[in-house]
């Protein structure tokens, strides 16, 4: 009886609303069952697994280089980051030294990917709240990045852009100049997004004080990335455990203070600017040298296990690999995906809010179902 007393059931008022797997606002196949008390969400159940493809099991039957293709398809919005995280984990297990040029280009690609992912986040988040023009403006910029990637590795979405030990290709001639031009364009466009949204009264009313979560609660729920930083927790893997060339880069990590949707929005908006800063440093300081390290023809890491995490646009993405030293396939491949952990916080975030805010909050935590379900 005491358990039921926590949530009084009003027969006439409580109704169950299903935001089904196919829905324009859930950004993928996510099902949320809302228990509504009148207009407010009393409780919710999140149902995932609609995009589960068995990537972790599949990897047990692929060799170490083939798994890079699988990692593309997890967070399909930020494939280069996922590639990077996986390759670095295997390099860590095999103690491979990645040449400096490769590390710089990897950093540039990771930051370009961050901008691309945030563009998609901004466009869809704004569109859910009603500002549909921002969607097209953000995608216009994302197109520029996709063009850069296409020039580099030939693909627009699933890049396969890293190899264990470095990069598959060197950057094409003139690519670095194009990247610098893109950075200039991007900086002015971020100003455009700010003009449209940041001080807009309607935007403020829709995002201020919506989904407030304190830093300690966010840490307890396992949140990561910009969603965590919006609540004031200064955790960024690029600063805390630098990888690629981040220890040589000079950049700031934006931190929010209230932990509401508006702060998470501001954090990601500032990350646009910091990313262009890092990219400029990466391109201008690009050293000469090989683009891939000394890697054996057949990749067979020694027996052992390791965990390595990087800061993908969504948050901290971690890879745990176990190698048995004998076969060319991993014994176990496990991904700690940031979207999965951030999604855990969603029921806590939407409790007490109106149905219209649920859509805003799903956008605010920035999930990709490919990563959640794997």
């Amino acid at each position, binding site marked *: 009886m005491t358990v039921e007393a926590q949530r009084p059931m009003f027969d006439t008022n409580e109704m169950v609303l299903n935001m089904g797997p196919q*829905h*324009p606002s859930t950004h993928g196949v996510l099902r949320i069952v809302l228990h509504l008390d009148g207009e407010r969400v009393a409780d919710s159940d999140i149902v995932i697994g609609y995009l589960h493809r068995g990537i972790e099991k599949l990897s047990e039957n692929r060799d170490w280089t083939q798994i890079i293709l699988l990692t593309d398809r997890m967070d399909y919005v930020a494939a280069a980051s996922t590639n990077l995280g996986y390759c670095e984990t295997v390099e860590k297990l095999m103690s491979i030294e990645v040449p400096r040029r490769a590390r710089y280009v990897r950093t540039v690609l990771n930051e370009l990917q961050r901008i691309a992912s945030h563009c998609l986040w901004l466009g869809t988040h704004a569109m859910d709240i*009603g*500002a549909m*023009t921002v969607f097209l403006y953000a995608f216009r910029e994302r197109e520029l990045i996709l063009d850069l990637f296409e020039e580099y590795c030939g693909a627009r979405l699933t890049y396969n852009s890293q190899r264990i030990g470095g990069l598959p290709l060197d950057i094409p001639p003139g690519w670095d100049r194009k990247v610098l031009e893109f950075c200039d364009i991007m900086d002015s466009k971020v100003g455009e997004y700010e003009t*449209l949204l940041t001080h807009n009264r309607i935007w403020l009313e829709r995002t201020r004080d919506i989904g407030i979560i304190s830093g300690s609660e966010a840490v307890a729920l396992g949140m990561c990335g910009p969603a965590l930083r919006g609540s004031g927790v200064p955790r960024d893997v690029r600063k805390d455990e630098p990888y690629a060339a981040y220890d040589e880069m000079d950049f700031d990590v934006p931190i929010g203070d209230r932990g509401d949707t508006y702060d998470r929005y501001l954090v990601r908006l500032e990350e646009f600017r910091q990313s262009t800063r890092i990219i400029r440093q990466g391109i201008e300081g690009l050293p000469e040298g090989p683009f891939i390290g000394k890697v054996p023809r057949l990749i067979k890491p020694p027996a052992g296990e390791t965990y390595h995490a990087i800061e993908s646009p969504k948050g901290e993405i971690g890879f745990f690999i176990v190698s048995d030293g004998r076969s060319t396939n991993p014994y176990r491949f496990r991904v700690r995906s940031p979207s999965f952990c951030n999604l855990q916080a969603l029921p806590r975030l939407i409790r007490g809010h*109106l*149905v*219209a805010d649920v*859509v805003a909050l799903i956008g605010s935590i920035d999930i990709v179902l490919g990563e959640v379900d794997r």
Partner: protein
Amino acid sequence: MVDIFVIPLLKIVILLNAILVSVSYMTLLERKVIAWVQSRLGPMRVGPRGVLQPIADALKLMIKEDITPAKADKWVFTLAPMMVLVPALIVFAVIPFGPEVNLFGRLEPLYITDINVGLLYIVSVASLGVYGIILGGWASNSKYPLLASLRASAQLISYEVAVTMTLVSMIVTAGTLSMVGIVEAQRESGLWFLFVQPVAFVLFFIGGLAETNRAPFDMPEAEQELTGGFHTEYSGMRFALFFLAEYANMIVISSVATTLFMGGWLRPFPAVEALGFLDLIPSWIWFISKTFAFLYVFLWIRATLPRYRYDQLMRLGWKVLIPIAIGNVVVSGVVKVLL
């Protein structure tokens, strides 16, 4: 005989045709304007640069299967779209497009009629538009569309109060309820009422946005994706009628705003003699241009602004707009008495 029957009938026929064509081309205009704001082109295929798109849309909707849900009330289901569109159309009977002009040797005023309670007529007919929305939701015979339609109609009724209060202050300023009289009053004072009553103008425009369910007040329409709105069960031409009614309402609000605040068919600075050459442009062209400017602003706002949540929308109407509107009436009355 001719004067009583033929001429008004002719005017009605011309006006109805013009309005219905405008309303269907508003759909194209909206898609084009929003597309251009968003760095894209909009419909381009049908006809040269997409000009024939509304005709294609109309044809498509007309040949769609006409489904009536089995358990729905057949009469009410059919009546609802009509009850939204008809009030929007009959408002045009009192909107003055121009003064008396010389047409084929007769002196004819460019409006169907000028009743002495014209402005009140417009407000009362607009209030009838609520029925179509309520009945549309009810006729769908299911809980969510009904609740959604009640929400949408509650929004309409709330903003009606604010808009009516604003119109009261305009009546005080103009001293008459007749639409032609208001335009004449602007000509006599030499100033568009936009400059005399800027607060009323802003209030009327915001209230007009909410009345026509346009962004940023279109949450009832947007939440359809989630809970199902009042026109879930409608398909084909009936569905089209709901949206044509929305565009017709937009044109009504724009025309009324033009008449009340922008001098109707008057040229800019009607009292200044030096600008007399502007009289070469016919009066109705001025009227249509001003209305078009308002419509463009409607579309511009839709492309730019995010959407208000329903409770924020209602709070804005009741706690902000209505007090300001009432205050405006009081101030207008005081100023009118003192001057």
